[in-house]
């Protein structure tokens, strides 16, 4: 890469692809951004579809919480280096409590001698109180889902990049959001840096596509990819998280943190390009509609892949809102049978569990898996394992039960535990648990129904 080109690119590093990602991943990314010398930003994507609802429940228990639980662990090692080198940190780690996350980061900043750190947080995605969702259209992919929901836990709109761009323009060094379009987290610093307008569709598409490629962290650098002998990845225990180099015209190069494991090649990038995409000619984000059908990927160097040809169209008129409701309970019980004739003993245990549900009269919907024979690819009816022959070394029998009444669900799961004394010969290792479930339903809501606020304060003011 020439020096001239190096000076014209903006680098975006990703530090997390979900809540639960490797907490030491951001450190080599930030180190690489600093050594590269040019302008850059870090972003974190930690909000799955249900994560906001779980955070709301946490906030109900403790009003100070309800933000990303790993926030301090993720940010403590990088906050000071980023602040010293002018690298803004952007993340949706606000979850149900962006202001609470801002206070936590402010405390971290003061601890590290950064009382003037400018922290922004975005509010307004939470529309639980302000919008009556029954008046709005259900998102198409959810139309077939069971609409029999419990009480509402959360309802959040996927905001676009505009509030984050505003925060960056006002000098924010850390930008905290709740729900926002995941790709928008990476698009925001690009719009801010290059001054792209809302009509630069192809550039916006390139920026949003950059976010799409990076938002799952290691999934574009050899994570969720290795398949020994077919797709080999060096040092997967130290996979480097991704960095994109984007130029003002929307040119994209995907690479990764220096001196790390993992790999960036055409295969890793192609898999992530279509990840969670439906119609590739019409990928909708809150900022821009993306057409991937002309996209090409080219290996231009070691762990460097150029992505070209993305086209953009106008942003959607309405925003997607995901509502989460209490969804009853899930009980799971498992026990292992091993050694000679274990498949027959496992099938007998499955038969017995089915009879026990009837005998107990429990109001639950159940499914049985024979893990090691057929489970994740099977149907609720056990089509595959019923047909299975042969003799595995061991089989884990799993019962899953769902229902509205916690006690019924828990009693169903405990029937697996009871197999320890009442079950087939040679069973052991029983485990069971019952957890509350969240049901989601998405809607399309007019933009003007969603009122967004951007707050900004110094760390010293957020004591």
């Amino acid at each position, binding site marked *: 890469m020439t020096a001239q080109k190096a000076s014209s690119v903006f680098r975006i590093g990703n530090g997390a692809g979900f809540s639960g990602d490797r907490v030491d991943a951001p450190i080599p990314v930030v180190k690489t951004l600093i050594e590269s010398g040019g302008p850059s930003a870090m972003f974190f994507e930690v909000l799955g579809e249900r994560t906001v609802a779980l955070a709301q429940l946490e906030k109900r228990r403790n009003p100070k919480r309800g933000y990303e639980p790993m926030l301090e662990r993720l940010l403590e090692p990088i906050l000071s280096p980023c602040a010293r080198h002018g690298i803004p940190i952007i993340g949706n780690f606000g979850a149900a409590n962006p202001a609470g996350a801002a206070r936590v980061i402010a405390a971290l900043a003061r601890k590290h001698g950064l009382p003037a750190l400018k922290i922004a947080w975005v509010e307004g995605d939470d529309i639980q109180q302000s919008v009556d969702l029954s008046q709005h259209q259900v998102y198409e992919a959810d139309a077939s889902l069971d609409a029999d929901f419990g009480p509402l836990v959360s309802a959040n709109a996927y905001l676009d990049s505009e509030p984050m761009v505003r925060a960056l323009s006002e000098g924010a060094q850390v930008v905290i959001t709740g729900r926002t379009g995941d790709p928008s987290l990476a698009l925001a610093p690009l719009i801010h840096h290059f001054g792209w307008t809302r009509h630069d569709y192809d550039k916006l598409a390139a920026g949003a596509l950059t976010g799409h490629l990076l938002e799952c962290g290691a999934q574009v650098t050899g994570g969720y990819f290795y398949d020994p002998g077919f797709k080999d990845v060096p040092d997967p225990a130290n996979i480097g998280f991704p960095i994109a180099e984007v130029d003002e015209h929307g040119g994209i190069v995907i690479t990764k943190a220096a001196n790390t494991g993992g790999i960036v090649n055409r*295969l890793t990038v192609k898999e992530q390009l279509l990840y969670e*995409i439906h*119609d590739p000619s019409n990928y909708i984000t809150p900022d821009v509609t993306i057409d991937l059908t002309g996209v090409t990927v080219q290996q231009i160097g070691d762990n460097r892949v150029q992505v070209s040809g993305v086209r953009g169209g106008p942003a959607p008129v309405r925003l997607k809102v995901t509502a989460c409701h209490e969804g009853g309970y899930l009980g799971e019980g498992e026990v292992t049978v091993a050694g000679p004739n274990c498949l027959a003993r496992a099938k007998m245990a499955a038969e017995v569990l089915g009879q026990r549900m009837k005998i107990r009269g429990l109001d639950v919907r159940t499914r049985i898996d024979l893990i090691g024979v057929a489970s994740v690819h099977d149907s609720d009816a056990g089509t595959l394992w019923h047909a299975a022959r042969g003799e595995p070394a061991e089989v884990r029998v799993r019962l899953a039960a769902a229902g509205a009444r916690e006690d019924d669900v828990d009693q169903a799961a405990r029937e697996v535990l009871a197999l320890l004394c009442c079950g087939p010969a040679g069973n052991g290792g029983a485990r069971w648990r019952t957890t509350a479930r969240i049901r989601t339903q998405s809607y399309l809501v007019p933009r003007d129904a969603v009122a967004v606020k951007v707050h900004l304060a110094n760390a010293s003011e957020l004591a």
Partner: protein
Amino acid sequence: MNTPHSSGGHKAASHGADALVEVPLHAVAHARAGDKGNRLNVSLFPYDESLYDTLADQVTAKRVHQLFAHRGATEVRRYEVRSLAGFNFVIDDVLEGGVNGSLNLDGHGKTNSFLLLSITVKVPRRVVRGG
């Protein structure tokens, strides 16, 4: 479209290398699955991009629908992204209610990429990857 597309054509590939063999899709292609609600998408890419038309002929939406029929799939659409030599299969109502309603251990359905890779295809021997 019925004859496998050959990248070299006149190039001197041996008869043995061009002979058709039946192998799991996994030996010639890679895939990744993702979910949204009760809808699954599985992308599919041949390692050797010259195999694209061969897979287009053999890995049809109808065949993928049959593969997921036991899970209650109601519709399968296949999108082609030729610039990436990729297919995207969108499979409706296959996740037993999706991650929030399913009793399946893998409520997201992410392991289904390897269910797709388990079907067999007939391909020239030269494109088969070893294990």
